[in-house]
């Protein structure tokens, strides 16, 4: 949004900067014209376009569906594209996500995030059917994309991940639990074996920060607990 034309004020942004050619990291200060509707991502893109072309930011869909624009803003995980600048107080500090290696500036390298997942990552789930609706001929049931948008906010918020890089983390465990719900050809025992690990489901200490940070209703903490219930039941019964 070109805020300049209808700008209702200026806000100061304190942005984390890191380039691999230079020593260390720093914070840069930028003053940006904003309106009541400006999002954090729009403000960052304005900085990139008008003040500093070397600022690296990550985005794609601009509507909380792709999960690429996750950042920490004033110490809290958020998707920049749906965070209103008006809702943020004072000088706005923007940093990359925690617990995932930084590639440059506000961009983290999602390789380590993705590598924690079990071999199968569910992408499609069935839409719950109801007796009042039909589906078109030839389609047995409606399907939809999974809620999880692989944004990494949960991993950034998790206090256990802050002190343990080996812990697979909430997103991976939530994905495993969803595979138990809807296997679609996966072997449930293999998923349970994968989760039954000191650095798997048992490493979680019930802080529930992942669920609080998730922008997409995945409820990873509740899913981890359900997964532990399934694991405990398997041990008891087996």
């Amino acid at each position, binding site marked *: 949004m070109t805020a300049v034309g209808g700008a209702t004020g200026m806000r100061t942004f304190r942005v984390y900067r890191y380039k691999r*050619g230079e020593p260390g990291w720093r914070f840069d200060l930028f003053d940006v014209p904003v309106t009541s509707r400006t999002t954090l991502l729009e403000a960052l893109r304005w900085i990139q376009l008008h003040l500093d072309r070397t600022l690296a930011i990550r985005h794609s869909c601009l509507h909380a569906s792709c999960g690429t624009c996750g950042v920490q803003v004033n*110490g809290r995980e958020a998707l920049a594209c749906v965070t209103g600048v008006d809702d943020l107080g004072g000088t706005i500090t923007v940093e990359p996500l*925690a617990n995932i290696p930084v590639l440059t500036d506000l961009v983290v390298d999602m390789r380590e995030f993705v590598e924690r997942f079990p071999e199968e990552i569910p992408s499609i789930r069935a839409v719950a059917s109801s007796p009042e609706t039909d589906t078109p001929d030839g389609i047995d049931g409606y399907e939809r994309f999974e809620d999880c948008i692989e944004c990494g906010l949960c991993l950034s918020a998790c206090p256990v991940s802050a002190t343990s890089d080996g812990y697979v983390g909430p997103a991976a465990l939530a994905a495993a639990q969803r595979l138990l719900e809807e296997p679609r050809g996966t072997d449930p025992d293999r998923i349970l074996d994968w989760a039954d690990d000191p650095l798997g489901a048992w490493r979680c200490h*019930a802080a*529930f920060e992942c669920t609080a940070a998730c922008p997409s209703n995945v409820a990873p903490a509740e899913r981890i*607990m359900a997964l532990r219930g*399934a694991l*405990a039941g398997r041990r008891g019964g087996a």
Partner: protein
Amino acid sequence: MSDTVPGADRRAERGPVLRKGVGIPASGWFDPRGRALGGFAFSANRVTGLGLVFYLYLHLGVLSLLLRGERSWDDFIRLATSWAFLSLDVVLILGILYHGLNGIRVALVGSGLVADRQRALWWSLGVFGTIALVAAALHIYGSR
């Protein structure tokens, strides 16, 4: 390939990792920004746990006074019945109640028995704990 792309070798390196807190490992557990109820419960569990471990050593140290004879023990008892000390006892009870009741909450939630009711559990056990704390405080101060 013979041609190199600028920066290609440095891209493969593992970059810095941001952690919450003040640079010391685990200090992020006590960073209140952006925390919800579950996060505070987690932090408080660790604080009370450390506090109870500290108290255990303190208690053993106090008991060792018995080895030094009746006089030093009587001195200690005089200190232990002062208002300030009794108030610290109430704080100790708070720590025990919080750590124990939250521990029950974590056990119920973490075994999958009550997987999705963590907030409700926190508040209901909190009410029970507060009643128990008030009763204990009345008893402690009343006995003086």
